[in-house]
């Protein structure tokens, strides 16, 4: 049961590539959004907040469909990106990564936001009096103090993207070697009677992958946490 076929290796490495790229590229965007939502006051903030939550609330198939409308080769965003940056998504792993990123975004933003809101502003004030500009303060104080949320967000997002199915298959369909990630392979297997063994094996692999991410993040959090939790005075 645990002999992994060449085809399955392909699925696994594709899943890792898609999720890795999706989360890696989304991390800074998610953090920026979290910071804005935690710290900046502006009209329409609730709308931005709702927009970020959108992929969570809608059935994934609808999100996939919206992605198709916007980022398909005939969609406005898709056409624009193809024209200016030569990026296309349709039927490509880039599309799977986009879907994974969009689905993971709300989880990442929330986790980070909680952590940013817990950062003691008096420490940022102290940094400013010591000559740090707001940007510097952000990178040297706010960001490192929010690392627990950053890591938690990354893990949540990674796990979510490893499991992402509905939006991906609707947006970029299921193309072996391009967009067939683990969940798509699992789903395919589930459609055939008597395929429980394959489903089980692939599911265990998916779980193992995110378990690795989980453990890695716990270790990083422990390292980053050394100085934390103490008294400020």
């Amino acid at each position, binding site marked *: 049961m645990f002999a992994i076929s060449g085809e399955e290796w392909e699925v696994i490495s594709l899943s890792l590539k898609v999720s890795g790229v999706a989360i890696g590229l989304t991390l800074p965007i998610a953090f920026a959004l979290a910071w804005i939502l935690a710290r900046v006051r502006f009209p329409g903030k609730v709308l931005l907040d709702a927009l970020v939550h959108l992929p969570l609330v809608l059935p994934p198939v609808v999100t996939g469909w919206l992605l198709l409308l916007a980022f398909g080769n005939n969609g406005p965003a898709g056409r624009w990106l193809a024209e200016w940056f030569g990026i296309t998504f349709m039927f490509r792993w880039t599309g799977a990564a986009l879907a994974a990123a969009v689905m993971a975004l709300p989880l990442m933003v929330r986790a980070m936001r909680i952590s940013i809101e817990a950062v003691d502003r008096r420490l940022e004030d102290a940094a400013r009096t010591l000559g740090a500009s707001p940007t510097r303060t952000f990178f040297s104080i706010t960001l490192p103090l929010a690392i627990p949320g950053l890591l938690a967000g990354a893990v949540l997002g990674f796990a979510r993207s490893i499991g992402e199915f509905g939006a991906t298959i609707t947006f970029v369909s*299921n193309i072996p070697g391009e967009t067939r990630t683990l969940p798509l392979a699992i*789903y395919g297997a589930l459609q055939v009677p008597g395929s429980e063994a394959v489903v089980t094996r692939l599911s265990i692999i998916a779980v193992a992958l995110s378990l690795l991410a989980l453990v890695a993040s716990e270790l990083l959090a422990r390292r980053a946490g050394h100085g934390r939790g103490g008294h400020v005075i």
Partner: protein
Amino acid sequence: QGQQRGPLVLAAASLQEALDEAANVWAAQRHPRPVISFAASSALARQVEAGAPADMFISADEEWMDHVAKKRLIRAKTRVSFLSNRLVLIAPAASKAQLKIARGFPLARALGKGRLAMADPDSVPAGRYGKAALTSLGVWTGVQGKIARAENVRAALALVERGEAPFGIVYATDARVSSRVRVVGTFPASSHPLISYPMALLRTSTSPDAEGFRRFLLSREGRAIFARRGFTTR
């Protein structure tokens, strides 16, 4: 409570419109309206397997019906394959592509760099029929690297509707309701195994109306409803 509850029917999602209409007509004849749950045949079959308290199962292919039959979960005598469908090749409505479906027809060339949208040829029934048709026509090896495997027929249809795929293979019933696609050609019935939708009462069935509804679907009136939607009835 006071109103009697109709039989619980588990039905393949692709039957949604036709079966809903049939249920309405049946209900208008002073029967309790059947409660119908539409989902993928695979999900429904697994629910039957898990002891779902339902009355009737209508599958989109014989394989899942065989699966539950083997486990003795249906009343074998009530099993009947009463609907059929055809496979068509479609293109976006604006497409000017002309293709005549025949042995060795140049589908791969017509696709060019584009992809052929169809339900997953390895797992979803519509995809399996499509694969069989293309294989028997001798074009499968040319196009198998160009397939966009969709979750189901409707998703494949959407890809063609949006013009993301230049061609697609769907059921005739799906193609006829979309104004944004054009049927390029119909696959010969002989090119693929007979498409059939089997129906059976479940062993756990308790509803006194289940058999009545089953008969209604098989009646001339019932068949007519499906025929109007493009199904072939047997």
